[in-house]
């Protein structure tokens, strides 16, 4: 069971990155390559606020969410908004990711920094396995975030407007949706999420300047498995990837971890090209 908890916790981290990708994808039909880097900034801010400034966790969450939302907003204004072709946004957000990596290294250095967790750093026995409190928290957080965002997207006007944009941007605009404001808002919300989540990812992974790069690729794999645009898909995809990695390392060897994950990806894409939770719809033209 220890293996399962470890795999689920790691999968939850991947899922939380993928949720951020999805928020931007739903609103803009493009990817924010810097999403994992934004989460990394949240982890570093958590270190500074918890260790250097001795702030309480709720305050740290507010600070990290606000600052990272600001960074995401800046990214949207500078690297996304002026770009007309969505394909070019892939390049400009990749540039933003590299800039954030460099800034983090200059500001916090290149050594791993231990981020404390509010519920303690001692492992506990739970449901037949050993697990750190932060790992349980990350699993719960991923589920809560996905359920909350799914409900928001289906039961609020803002959520419905976002879904309408994802369906047909021009039609949504004709129906009075301010698509530019919504796209900007989606970046800010993704930033808030990254900042908040970073506070709790840091205690598991350390705050380290290579964290963004480590998480970015796995986030995309999770997105492809779950389905681009599907929030429940990111949760299931993340947990599949995390568990597959953990089991492959334990029973096959670490050299098979990536291979196993990408075999699963290929199998899913062959069976369901749009991912597990997205249905392909034919259009008659």
């Amino acid at each position, binding site marked *: 069971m*220890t*293996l399962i908890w*470890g*795999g689920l*916790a*790691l999968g939850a*981290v991947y899922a939380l990155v993928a949720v951020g990708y999805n928020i931007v994808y739903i609103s803009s039909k493009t990817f924010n390559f810097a999403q994992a880097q934004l989460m990394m900034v949240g982890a570093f801010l958590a270190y500074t606020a918890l*260790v250097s400034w001795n702030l309480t966790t709720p305050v740290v969450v507010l600070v990290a969410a606000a600052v990272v939302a600001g960074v995401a907003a800046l990214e949207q204004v500078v690297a996304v908004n002026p770009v007309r072709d969505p394909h070019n946004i892939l390049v400009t957000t990749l540039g933003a990711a590299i800039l954030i*990596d460099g800034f983090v*290294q200059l500001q916090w*250095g*290149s*050594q*791993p*920094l*231990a981020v*404390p967790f509010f519920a303690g750093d*001692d*492992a506990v026995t739970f449901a037949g396995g*050993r*697990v*750190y409190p932060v790992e349980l928290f990350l699993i719960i957080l991923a589920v809560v975030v996905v359920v909350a965002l799914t409900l928001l997207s289906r039961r609020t006007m803002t959520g419905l407007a976002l879904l309408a944009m994802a369906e047909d941007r021009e039609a949504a605009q004709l129906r009075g949706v301010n698509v530019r404001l919504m796209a900007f808002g989606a970046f800010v919300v993704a930033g808030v999420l990254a900042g908040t989540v970073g506070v709790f990812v840091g205690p*598991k*992974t*350390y705050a*380290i*300047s*290579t964290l963004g*790069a*480590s*998480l970015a690729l796995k986030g995309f794999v999770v997105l492809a498995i779950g389905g681009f645009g599907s929030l429940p898909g990111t949760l299931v995809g993340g947990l599949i990837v995390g568990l597959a*990695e*953990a*089991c492959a*390392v*334990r029973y096959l*060897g*670490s*050299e098979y*971890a*990536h291979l196993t994950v990408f075999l699963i990806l290929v199998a899913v894409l062959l069976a369901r090209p749009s991912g597990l939770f997205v249905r392909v719809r034919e259009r008659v033209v």
Partner: protein
Amino acid sequence: MRLRMTAATGVFALAAAMVGCGSADGAGGDDDAYHVVVLGGLSSEGILADNASTSVNAAQAGVDFANDNGGVVGRKVTIDVIDDTGDPTVAVSKLREAIAENKPDLVLNSGPSTVAEATLPILNQNQILSFNIGPTVNSSDPKKFPLNFDIAAGADQQIAAYQDHFEEKGYGKIAILHGNSAYGETFGSTAEDLLTKSGVEVTVREEYDVAALDMTSQLQKLEASEPDAVIVDAYGAPLGYILKGVGKLGWDVPLIGNTSVSSTSLTGAAAPEGIVGTPEAKSLVMQVPSAAKRDPAAKAVNEAVERMLKHGEIKSSMVLAMNYDALPLVMAAAESADSIEAADLAKALENPKVLERASTALYDDYGFSSDVHKPQDVSREYQFIAPSVLKDGQFQ
């Protein structure tokens, strides 16, 4: 047409000269001086930048030592620092520029091994003496690279030191956990071979991805093999994940880290920045060269530290200060050969008497020979210590 060609050539030469001027930081151009170039990834990513800083700092301190002690056969020693960003392609282009501008007499390669792999053929082609911190498969083979000397001890020497430790502690069954970096794989396979040959039972050798964020699965596999102790190769955050994993499993097993472990900042700082004094660190000892452990009686090492501090903070442990010893070695070789020609110096460096005479600080005797250009019989220069606060490159 000729005028246009001449003008173009002139502009090209001027541009080349300007590029060359901008590529290096330091002194150069004195024809009578012994000219040293040190390559280091000062602006590379991750903790490699701190390691490169320490290596470059050590080279600069070594040059100071040489100049304060009469230079290389009376010649003043100058040094240029080239920031290769840890990238072999950058290293190659900048090294070529440096050679074209002012061919160095000595090049110090601060690693990683990919940079050494790319630059050694160029150094060989240009008949330049070199010392190298990042060993490659062939870098210490005099038949392939007669003018290069690996100055950092190989995995074999470090592993030889483990055997005495195991005997002392009574460990008979050992598991090995190592990263999938080039060094990690070499270390893991060499450790398995040498320990098996010496009669130690290796229960399992497990590799991990250096980009992995959790080590629980690997550790469960090791735990199932019931070893007396675990040899750990880890650098940076992976060490933290290993310690967290051991804590999570509640596994009470001695962990014996290699020099990569002792080069990680976590082992040299108290919580929360590091692991010194934490429960996770209680089961960990790590291998360090004696120079990395503070000893008031070690005069040569302490002098090296003092000299390095004049060039700025020592950001990593003295494990990475091997470049310092390159200069005393060259001084002794040049004195013996009465020459600064690379071939003459290389031959002299294979002479045990010359090596014995060299006023080196980190290893007493490097043991180079005409058969192998890497440190030999230096396992006695290593010790195993618990994590403790790192100050000025030394564990206190």
